[in-house]
């Protein structure tokens, strides 16, 4: 009987809470078309977690990876929120590499 699971649950809540400003700022500064890069980064972080021996660190890195994956699916809706004026709108966004290809893909949303 130990509290590892409960503490990891609380840590996960905190890490995912940090995902909110991550999504807001990424959309505001860069734009939702960066979603494939955020998704890819999340998957890479997740893979990196597989090679960490320490259980605490392995879980924390894994959850950070999962947060990036989740965040990538939130960017499109966040872009609409900014257009609606629920968040500040920035018209000078940084265009992603391969923008024209990414525009042809349907941005994921859960």
């Amino acid at each position: 009987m130990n509290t590892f699971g409960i503490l990891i649950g609380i840590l996960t809540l905190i890490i995912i809470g940090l995902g909110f400003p991550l999504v807001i700022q990424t959309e505001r500064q860069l734009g939702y078309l960066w979603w494939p890069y955020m998704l890819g980064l999340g998957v890479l972080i997740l893979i990196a977690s597989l090679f960490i021996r320490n259980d605490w660190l392995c879980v924390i890195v894994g959850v950070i990876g999962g947060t990036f994956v989740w965040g990538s699916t939130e960017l499109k809706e966040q872009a609409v929120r900014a257009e609606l004026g629920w968040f500040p709108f920035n018209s000078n966004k940084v265009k992603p590499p391969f923008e024209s290809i990414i525009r042809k893909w349907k941005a994921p949303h859960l």
Partner: protein
Amino acid sequence: MEINVLGLVAALTAFLTIWFGHVAVRKIEFAAPAIWLPAVIFTTLGLLTEYWSLVTENLALKTALGIAGITFLFDAFELVRQQRRIRKGHAPANPHNPRHAAILAEPNSHATTLDLLKREPIGEPVNPDQAAQLVIEH
């Protein structure tokens, strides 16, 4: 080289339970005449899951249950936040739900039956009329 799947287990559990909660909270809040009952159910489920995480010996199961339990507890809180979104017009109100009908009928109510997020971004700010038109066309 040894592989440690604990991080992957944690990420998958977080992703799947949050996805489930995200959908369930919106559907339940939309239909429920009162939100205290589903909130009590989510809270009970969360506490039981945390207890199970505490007593199980298997580390992967312990991790998954710890995360799932906190997610259920947060879902109870999300029901309250969802009702707040309805009041602000940030989520669609259900006119057939008496609780939502009352919110829609309040003087100077900002609530709407439209889901203003259900469209593709157009790349520029929109006024309230355009916002409504865009989701109707979508």
